[in-house]
C-alpha cells in the first residue's frame, strides 16, 4: 500500500499513531513492511491456507462475534443434505462433472430451497467450462428461490448449519499446515491470529486491505471469499474501521466496473443477456432475482427498464418490452484473453485500445502481439506511442524473426488522447466515490477525449446506416445519442451524460418528456415512467445538482466528509452500515457508533447515510415469505442478498465452490497436501501450442522450473508504463527493469548484484538487472527451500519515444484463468533463473525450446483439470 497507494497509506500511519497494529503479509519486504509492526513473508499462492487457518483459529477458540454472526450472517442457515465437502470427495465439492470440469451447484443450496430458478437453464453442456459467475448471474450475487424463508438453527449446533459446516471444512487448516505450506512459522502466524481477534468485537474493528494481485490467481475469487468469511465471523463488516478494502490501481477502474466497459455486465451490475436463458425480458429478469427472495435486487425490473428507456427513449415501450431484444446476447466467455485468441483465429477484425497497453500489461505479451498482428485494423488511443501501437515495427517478435513488418497487414490508427485536465468528467475512486474533475485547458493538436471521439464515431456510424432498413441496425438508429455541448463547441457534454446516468422522471401524455432528475434509485419505476443509465449512480444529480463536484474542504466538515464527492449508492460511505448497530439498533459500542436507530424520530440516523430502509424499525418482522425490500427484517443488514444476511457460505453464484478450498497455482513447485487434487478443478485452461505451461510439482520436469516468481508495481511507475516511462522525472527515478532475488538464491545461481539475469518459462525468456536483497526471504515449504523472485512489470520493448525500456515481465506468463471472473493467474508462477543476458534473435527461441524439451512440455502439461498435475 505504501508503494502503490502512498497517499492512501497516510491513513494507515494516522491509525498507527493512534495505536493501531499494522500487519503486512507479502512475499516481499516493501515500504509498507518498513512501517508495519509485523511483516509476514509467505509463499505466493498459499493465501487460502493462511486465511483458512485464521478462520479455524477463530472457530476453534470460539472467538467469533456471536451476536453479529447469529443475527447478520447465514451461520444458522441449514444446507441441503446432498452437500458434500472437498474432504469427502478428494478435493472437489459435490456436483463436479469431470467431463466438463464444472459444477452443478444444486447440492450446495440451502435446505428445502426449491431448485434455483435460473440454475437449470443457465448451464448448457457445451459451454459449461466457459461459464463465469458474471455472465451466468450478473455480479449481483445469486438469485435464490425461497431465500426469504430459510431454515435456521439459532443454537448454531445443527450439523448441517453453515457454522458447523465451516468448522468441519476448516479443521485441517492448522498452524502446522501454515508452516508447511505458507513457509510462515507457527509463532508468527499465531501472533497474527491474536492481533486480529483481540482487535475485533464490540469495541474494536480490524480492516483487511488488499491490492488486486489477490484477484490474479486461478482461485482469486476464493481469496477474497476467505477474507469475507473471516471479517463476517469477526463482525468487521459494515462498521467503521472494518471491511475488506480493495486498493485498485487505476483512477476509475471502479467506475469502469460500475459503468462497465466489460463484456458480461450492463451498467449497475445488471447481467448481459445470455442466449438461451434470457430471450425475453421476463426470462432475463428471472435470472437476476426471483419472486420469493428478499432485498433490493427484487426491483431489478425498475433498474433494467429505466436503462432501456435511457438508451432507446420513446422507441422503448411496454408493448415491445422496452426494446429489450435490442440487446446482444452472450454465449460464453468473451473476455479479453478469449478475444485475443479469437484474433489469432482471425474472427476479430478490429480492435480499439483505449488507454491500455496489452503488449506489456496483459499476461502473455507474445500472444497479445500475435493477436494484434492478425487484425485488419487497430485503433490505439493514448498519450504516447506505446508498445501496443508499435508491435509491428519494433516488437520482440520482429527481433526474433517470428514476425516481419512487411508481412503484417494490420492497419494502425494512432489517435492522440486528451489528458485528465483537458476534459470534464468523473472518476470513481477505490471506495466508490465519484469525483468530478474540471477541464482546465483545451487539448493540444489532434488530442481529443474519448467522450468526443466516441460521440463523433457514433454519429458517423449512424450516418452511414441512416437509410438502412435492416432490422439489425434498429438498435443503432433508435439509440438516444444527443449530448451536444451547451456552449456550442464541437464534441459531447460530460455533464449531459452524467445527467442521463443519474436519470429523470418521464412525464407528459406518453411519458416521453424529461421531468425532474431522480434523487434515488428507489424512485425508479418498472413501467417505463423513469429513465436512468446506471441505477446505482442515481442520486449523483439529485435536485439537479452535480454532487460529484461537491468540494467542501475536508477541514470544514465531519470526518465522514459527505460533502466531498458523492459515493454510490445514495452517498453511503460504508456499505451495509446497518451492521454497525446491534440487532436492536443501538451502536455495538460508544467507540464504534456509526449508524443507529433513533426511536423517537422513528428512523435510522448517524454519521453516514444509513444503508437501510430509513424508517424500518430494528424490531420489524415481515410476513414470512414476503419478497423484495419489504421482505427485509429490521435485522437484515445485507440488503442486496437474497436472504438479507452476509454469506459465510455461498449456496449459489460461484462456479468453483461454496467455500474457499486450497488449490495450488497452475504452476507450483509444491504438491497440494490436502488431497490428490493439485489445482482448482474448474480453472479455465487453454490447451494451445502458443500457451504452454510449466510442469507443476509431482509431474516430471517440474524441477526444470524450481522457483516462484511474482510480479508487482513500483511507486514511480504506473502499470504498463504508458503514463510513466515517457515522463522524465519518473523514468529517471526508476530507469531499468530488475529482478529481486535473495542472497541465498544469488549464491545458488551465481547471480551478481547489478549484473544481468535471464528468467525463463515455457513461454519465453527475458533479461533483467539483478538486485540481490534481503527484501526477499527464502522460505521452507514442506521441508524444501523455496526461492521467490520479484519482478516489477512496467517495462516494454519498442515503445516510440519511451525514455526507458526493458523486457516485459508479463511476457513470462501464460494464460490460465479464474473460472468465475476470467482473470489470469499472474502472481504465482514458476520459472528458472540463470546469470547473464538472454540470447537475441532466433537463439532466444532455441533457448526456450531447450527448456521445453528438458521439461517434456506438451499442450497437456499442467492442464488436466481433475487430479494431480
Amino acid at each position, binding site marked *: 500500500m505504501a508503494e502503490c497507494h502512498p*497517499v492512501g497509506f497516510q491513513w494507515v500511519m494516522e491509525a498507527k499513531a493512534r495505536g493501531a497494529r499494522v500487519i503486512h503479509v507479502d512475499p516481499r519486504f516493501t515500504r509498507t513492511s518498513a512501517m508495519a509492526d509485523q511483516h509476514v513473508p509467505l509463499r505466493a499462492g498459499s493465501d487460502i491456507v493462511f486465511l483458512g487457518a485464521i478462520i479455524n483459529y477463530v472457530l476453534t477458540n470460539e472467538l467469533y462475534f456471536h451476536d453479529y454472526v447469529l443475527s447478520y450472517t447465514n451461520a444458522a442457515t441449514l444446507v441441503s443434505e446432498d452437500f458434500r465437502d472437498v474432504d469427502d470427495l478428494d478435493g472437489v465439492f459435490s456436483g463436479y462433472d469431470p467431463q466438463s470440469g464444472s459444477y452443478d451447484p444444486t447440492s450446495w443450496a440451502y435446505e428445502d430451497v426449491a431448485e434455483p430458478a435460473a440454475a437449470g437453464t443457465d448451464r448448457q453442456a457445451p459451454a459449461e467450462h466457459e461459464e463465469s459467475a458474471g455472465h451466468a448471474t450478473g455480479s449481483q450475487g445469486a438469485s435464490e428461490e425461497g431465500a426469504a424463508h430459510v431454515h435456521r438453527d439459532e443454537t448454531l449446533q445443527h450439523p448441517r448449519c453453515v457454522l458447523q459446516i465451516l468448522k468441519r471444512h476448516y479443521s485441517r487448516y492448522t498452524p502446522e499446515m501454515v508452516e508447511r505450506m505458507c513457509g510462515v512459522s507457527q509463532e508468527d502466524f499465531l501472533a497474527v491470529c491474536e492481533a486480529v481477534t483481540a482487535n475485533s468485537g464490540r469495541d474494536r474493528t480490524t480492516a483487511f486491505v488488499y491490492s488486486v494481485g489477490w484477484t490474479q490467481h486461478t482461485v482469486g475469487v476464493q481469496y477474497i471469499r476467505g477474507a469475507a468469511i473471516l471479517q463476517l465471523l469477526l463482525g468487521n463488516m459494515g462498521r467503521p474501521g472494518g471491511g475488506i478494502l480493495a486498493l485498485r490501481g487505476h483512477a476509475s*477502474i471502479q467506475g469502469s466496473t460500475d459503468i462497465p466497459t466489460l463484456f458480461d455486465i450492463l451498467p449497475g451490475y445488471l447481467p*448481459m443477456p445470455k442466449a438461451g436463458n434470457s430471450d425475453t425480458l421476463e426470462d432475463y429478469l428471472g435470472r437476476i432475482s426471483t419472486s420469493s427472495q428478499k432485498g433490493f435486487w427484487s426491483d431489478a425490473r425498475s433498474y433494467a427498464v429505466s436503462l432501456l428507456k435511457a438508451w432507446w427513449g420513446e422507441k422503448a415501450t411496454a408493448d415491445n418490452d422496452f426494446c429489450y431484444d435490442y440487446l446482444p*446476447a452472450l454465449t460464453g466467455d468473451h473476455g*479479453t484473453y478469449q478475444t485475443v485468441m479469437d484474433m489469432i483465429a482471425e474472427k476479430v477484425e478490429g*480492435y480499439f485500445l483505449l488507454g491500455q497497453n496489452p503488449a506489456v500489461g496483459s499476461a502473455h505479451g507474445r500472444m497479445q502481439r500475435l493477436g494484434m498482428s492478425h487484425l485488419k485494423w487497430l485503433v490505439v488511443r493514448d*498519450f504516447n506511442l506505446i508498445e501496443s501501437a508499435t508491435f509491428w515495427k519494433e516488437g520482440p517478435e520482429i527481433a526474433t524473426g517470428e514476425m516481419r513488418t512487411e508481412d503484417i497487414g494490420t492497419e494502425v490508427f494512432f489517435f492522440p488522447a486528451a489528458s485528465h485536465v483537458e476534459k470534464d468528467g468523473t472518476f*470513481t475512486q477505490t471506495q466508490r466515490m465519484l469525483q468530478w*474533475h474540471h477541464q482546465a485547458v483545451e487539448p493540444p493538436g489532434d488530442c481529443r477525449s474519448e467522450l468526443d471521439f466516441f460521440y463523433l464515431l457514433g454519429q458517423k456510424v449512424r450516418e452511414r446506416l441512416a437509410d438502412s432498413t435492416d432490422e439489425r441496425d434498429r438498435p443503432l438508429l433508435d439509440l438516444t445519442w444527443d449530448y451536444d455541448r451547451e456552449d456550442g463547441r464541437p464534441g459531447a457534454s460530460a455533464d449531459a451524460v452524467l445527467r442521463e446516468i443519474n436519470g429523470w422522471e418521464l412525464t407528459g401524455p406518453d411519458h416521453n418528456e424529461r421531468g425532474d432528475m431522480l434523487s434515488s434509485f428507489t424512485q425508479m419505476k418498472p413501467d417505463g415512467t423513469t429513465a436512468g443509465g446506471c441505477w446505482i449512480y442515481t442520486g449523483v444529480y439529485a435536485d439537479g445538482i452535480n454532487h460529484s463536484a461537491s468540494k467542501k474542504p475536508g477541514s470544514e466538515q465531519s470526518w465522514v466528509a459527505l460533502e466531498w464527492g458523492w459515493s454510490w449508492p445514495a452517498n453511503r460511505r460504508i456499505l451495509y452500515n446497518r451492521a454497525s448497530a446491534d440487532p436492536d439498533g443501538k451502536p455495538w459500542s460508544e467507540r464504534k457508533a456509526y449508524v443507529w436507530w433513533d426511536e423517537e424520530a422513528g428512523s435510522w440516523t448517524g454519521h453516514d447515510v444509513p444503508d437501510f430502509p430509513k424508517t424500518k424499525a430494528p424490531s420489524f418482522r415481515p410476513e414470512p415469505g414476503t419478497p423484495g425490500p419489504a421482505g427485509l427484517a429490521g435485522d437484515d443488514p445485507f440488503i442486496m442478498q437474497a436472504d438479507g444476511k452476509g454469506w459465510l457460505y455461498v449456496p449459489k453464484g460461484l462456479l468453483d465452490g461454496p467455500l474457499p478450498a486450497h488449490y495450488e497455482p497452475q504452476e507450483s513447485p509444491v504438491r497440494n497436501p490436502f488431497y490428490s487434487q493439485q489445482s482448482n478443478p474448474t480453472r479455465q485452461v487453454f490447451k494451445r501450442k502458443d500457451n504452454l505451461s510449466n510442469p507443476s510439482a509431482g509431474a516430471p520436469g517440474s524441477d526444470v522450473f524450481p522457483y516462484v516468481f511474482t510480479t508487482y508495481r513500483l511507486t514511480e511507475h504506473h502499470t504498463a508504463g504508458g503514463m510513466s516511462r515517457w515522463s522524465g522525472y519518473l523514468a529517471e527515478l526508476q530507469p531499468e527493469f530488475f529482478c529481486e532475488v535473495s542472497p541465498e538464491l544469488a549464491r545458488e545461481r551465481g547471480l551478481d548484484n547489478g549484473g544481468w539475469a535471464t528468467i525463463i518459462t515455457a513461454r519465453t525468456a527475458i533479461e533483467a538487472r539483478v538486485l540481490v536483497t534481503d527484501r526477499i526471504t527464502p522460505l521452507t515449504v514442506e521441508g524444501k527451500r523455496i526461492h521467490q523472485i520479484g519482478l516489477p512489470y512496467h517495462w516494454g520493448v519498442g515503445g516510440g519515444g519511451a525514455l526507458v525500456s526493458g523486457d516485459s515481465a508479463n511476457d513470462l506468463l501464460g494464460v490460465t484463468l479464474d473460472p468465475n471472473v476470467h482473470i489470469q493467474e499472474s502472481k504465482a508462477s514458476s520459472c528458472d533463473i540463470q546469470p547473464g543476458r538472454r540470447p537475441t534473435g532466433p537463439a532466444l527461441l532455441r533457448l526456450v525450446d531447450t527448456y521445453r524439451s528438458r521439461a517434456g512440455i506438451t499442450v497437456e502439461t499442467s492442464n488436466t483439470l481433475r487430479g494431480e498435475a
Partner: protein
Amino acid sequence: MSARKTLLSWPVVRQLTGTDPLGRGAAAQSQKTRDWTARTETADRVVQSVCPYCAVGCGQRVYVKDEKVIQIEGDPDSPVSRGRLCPKGSASEQLVNAPGRQRYMLYRRPHGTDWERIDLETATDMVADRVVASRAAQWQDVDQEGHALRRTMGIAALGGATLDNEENYLIKKLFTAMGAIQIENQARI
C-alpha cells in the same frame, strides 16, 4: 533603502533578533530569494481536478497561465489526500506538457514500414467505415439452436479504467447498440 533598514536586514542582526536564531531559514535568506515568487502565484486561474494514476483519488489543483498548464499541486481541501501527491501525481504536469507527447494523428497502412501523418477527420471517417464493414462481416443473428444473438464478433475493445465514467458510458452504450459485445478493461486483468 535607508541606513536603518540596511542595518536591520543584515543577516547577523536578523539572526539575533528574529525568529531564526540558528540562521537556517529567514535570517539567511537573500534579497534575491525573497523576491522570488512561486509560479503558482502568477497563474491566471486554478482548477480543481483529480489525480489520473491510481484509484486513491487524490485532489489536484491545476494552475493555468496563458491557457497552458504551468503546475499541478495537491489539493489541501481534499479529505482523501489533504494536499499530498505521490511521485506519479507530482509528475502529472509532465503528462500534459511532456515534449514527447504525441499531439498528432498517425497512420500505419497495411504492410507499411513506418508511420504517416494523416488528417484527424479523415482518420475518424476511415475508422467509422471499418466499424460498419467489420460489424457486418462478422454478424450473427442467432445461435445454432435459433436463440437470438443479434451481435457482431468483428469488433473488440480494451480500456476504460483510466477513462471517465461518462466516457465508459458512451462506449458501452454505442458498442451494445452496435451489437459489439467484446468490450473489456483492466478490471479483468
